């Protein structure tokens, strides 16, 4: 009852892409989570931006599910009219971490995808400038936010 807008949005996505959406749910008020298959993400993203009005890109990140052997890339989006946050998720296999870039849809995902690339090693196809953002230029320590990357000893070197 309280989450009518959110339910409507979820229904709209589900009815438009019935076989592409792996999962779509209302987490709580003002939070929607949509999980999409990798190959159709650009179409879904365009639909979400143009039809549903999620025009304000917040951020992008990823989670390393090492037990399931997959990465989950999460795009955080906001609708400036309806004030609802949508988390657009896409699961990609850990041994072949390639995902299409969403910079053609939301150009502001530029920095966030660069960060995800250097932190997780996920290559974003179609990204205009996939270079280091935060790590030092001569960094050779692997991908820090992956779960198999261990932090140094507690003493501090």
């Amino acid at each position: 009852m309280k989450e009518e807008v959110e339910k409507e949005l979820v229904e709209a996505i589900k009815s438009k892409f019935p076989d592409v959406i792996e999962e779509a749910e209302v987490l709580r008020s003002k939070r929607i989570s949509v999980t999409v298959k990798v190959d159709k993400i650009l179409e879904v993203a365009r639909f979400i931006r143009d039809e549903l009005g999620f025009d304000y890109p917040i951020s992008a990140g990823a989670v390393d599910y090492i037990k399931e052997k997959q990465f989950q890339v999460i795009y955080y989006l906001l609708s400036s009219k309806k004030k609802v946050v949508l988390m657009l998720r896409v699961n990609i296999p850990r041994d072949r971490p390639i995902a299409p870039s969403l910079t053609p849809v939301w150009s502001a995902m530029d920095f966030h995808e660069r960060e995800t690339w250097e932190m997780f090693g996920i290559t974003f196809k179609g990204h205009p400038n996939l270079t280091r953002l935060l790590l030092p230029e001569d960094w050779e320590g692997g991908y820090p936010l992956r779960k198999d990357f261990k932090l140094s000893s507690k003493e501090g070197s």
Partner: protein
Amino acid sequence: MSEEPSKRVMRISWGPQHPMSGQIRILVDTDGERVLNIIPDLGFTHRAIEKILENRNVVQGVVPVERMVMVDTANNALAYVRAVEELLGIEPPKRAQYIRVIICEVCRILSHLYGFGLGAESGGGYPAVFLWSTADREPFLDLMERITGTRWSYSFFVPGGVYRDFPDKIKDKFLKTLSYFEKRLETYRRAWFENKIFEARAKNVGVLKPEDAIRLGAAGPSLRSSGVSLDVRKNEPYEAYDEIDFKVVTLPEGDSYARLFARYLEMVESVKIIRQAIENMPSGPYRKSVSPFKRLPKGEAYARVEAARGELGVHIISDGGFKPYRVKITSPTLRNLYVLSQLPKISDILLADLPVIMYSFDPWYLDADR
């Protein structure tokens, strides 16, 4: 980073050691005094806070999160604490919510003083206003020291409430400080925002239209000064903000002057909010005890908070352990820096305007680097 584009274009490396750069390096392509391209080079303060948070339990985690923005520690800590509370499914007591609102708004004042002070310094080297703003932070720092025990990094918000009670004795002192500060705000307006040279330097400089602001993802006062009314405090009221009467500051112009002036107006609103919160603060408990030695329930929580620089989100994903499985922090400055890097493409910028434009976004690079 990349090679120099052509002979006619000069690439200037701006920072990290530059009187007006802060902890960032910006490569500026200039043709004479005209800026063609801005390429931010971030990461000079990348401390891997997201990775560190996977190694701390939820009570310890407040400390690194607070170090993201030292002038605005309370809002950062609040975002993290709220995410943890949502995960644990607890609601802090009413009194704690009011105390949180007070401290967050004081932090907003501290941060905006810094922001528009630096804006004054950058808008043509007017150090007097900058140093006045540091002077006017002192009474608030004293109050914070009285309430929390330290001047900047409070570690005062804990999951379940606040660490200590708000001493009712200092209410009068608080109100006195607020009325003093309102007088000072008037001084700032007369000395700075009505200064003709500053108007000449900052008006119509770096104009950001509302549709561009949304498309590029500007955050906080930088977004609202373009005429877009997006404020988490109103859209998604947290803590006691739904019981407090305040208005969201929006300005239609979208230039550097408006971005700095929006910060000024938000300080005026913050003073009102603090007044109301102090007057309406209920009595009662200030904390629900949460054991740090308790497993987090499996699940996720994404808490959003309107920090001084804009919407700050903390997304905690838990797999049922003592420590969060993954913490994602969506920081406002990173988005604002992207807007800055795209600004030469949508408006004309001169090299002399660059500091004003940069500091009109009030960047805090530690926030962007995490």
